[in-house]
């Protein structure tokens, strides 16, 4: 059986479309556990900040370190599962890169807060949280519209809370912004 140029063009277009959907699904699947993880950390850390403000710094530090370690583990698991021949060393290398990325961003945020004009805890919380939600939007431009939407929705919720919620702001941030990330992560896992 021979085919002509028009059928070849249509077949290649079908291949591209199917491949693109498959790639997008994989990207969403890879990103989803990180969103759920950090959504849960926002939920816990903001909740603790609201209930015990004096301990907020220690709680955030402990949970951020826990999140970075868990992110390393998730990155390692994902790479090991996808690697041809499942070479543990390559997975380990990918895991370290993920953890290093988080540490670079967290260091940037710490330095930025230090050099910016004095900020109160609400401003710091909004700044750090929105840094991540804008990051999700930027990544979403390349990865897919769902991630962009999650970043945008979380940003709007943070702004709504910052300007509109005056008492129990941190509880709001934990439940609404953290909850948005968890819900977003679950949404990414769905087809």
């Amino acid at each position: 059986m021979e085919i002509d140029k028009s059928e070849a063009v249509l077949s290649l277009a079908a291949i591209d479309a199917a491949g693109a959907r498959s790639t997008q699904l994989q990207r969403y699947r890879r990103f989803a556990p990180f969103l759920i993880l950090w959504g849960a950390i926002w939920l816990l850390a903001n909740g603790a900040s609201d209930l015990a403000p004096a301990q907020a710094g220690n709680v955030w530090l402990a949970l951020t370190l826990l999140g970075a370690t868990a992110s390393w583990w998730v990155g390692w698991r994902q790479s090991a599962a996808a690697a041809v021949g499942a070479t543990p060393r390559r997975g380990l290398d990918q895991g370290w890169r993920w953890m290093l990325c988080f540490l670079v961003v967290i260091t940037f945020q710490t330095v930025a807060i230090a050099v910016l004009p004095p900020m109160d805890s609400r401003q710091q919380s909004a700044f750090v949280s929105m840094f991540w939600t804008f990051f999700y939007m930027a990544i979403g431009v390349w990865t897919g519209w769902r991630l962009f939407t999650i970043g945008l929705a979380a940003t709007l919720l943070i702004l709504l809370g910052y300007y509109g919620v005056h008492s129990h702001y941190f509880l709001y941030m934990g439940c609404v912004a953290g909850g948005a990330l968890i819900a977003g992560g679950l949404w990414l896992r769905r087809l």
Partner: protein
Amino acid sequence: MNELIHQPTRLKIMATLNALRGAAKLEFTELRKLLGVTDGNLGTHLTTLENAGYIEIEKTFVGKKPRTRVSLTRAGRRAFDAHVQYLRDIIHASS
């Protein structure tokens, strides 16, 4: 031309699996949703591709639930790449 791969549904199955990273596998239900086909239709085409040695079907249990995962074999990836090249050659030859 590889007529086995060129059939429209099988072509999409191969393209979807070819886009997976490394040794990653796709669940049967995910593949069905991505392609928008019925269980029976997908099962028939997967069997054809498996018999040709192009894909590998792994059946396991997660708890009490059966799980079927599909991946491309090396032979399948080679055959798919060759078919894509064949299609490109047709386009280049006539332009």
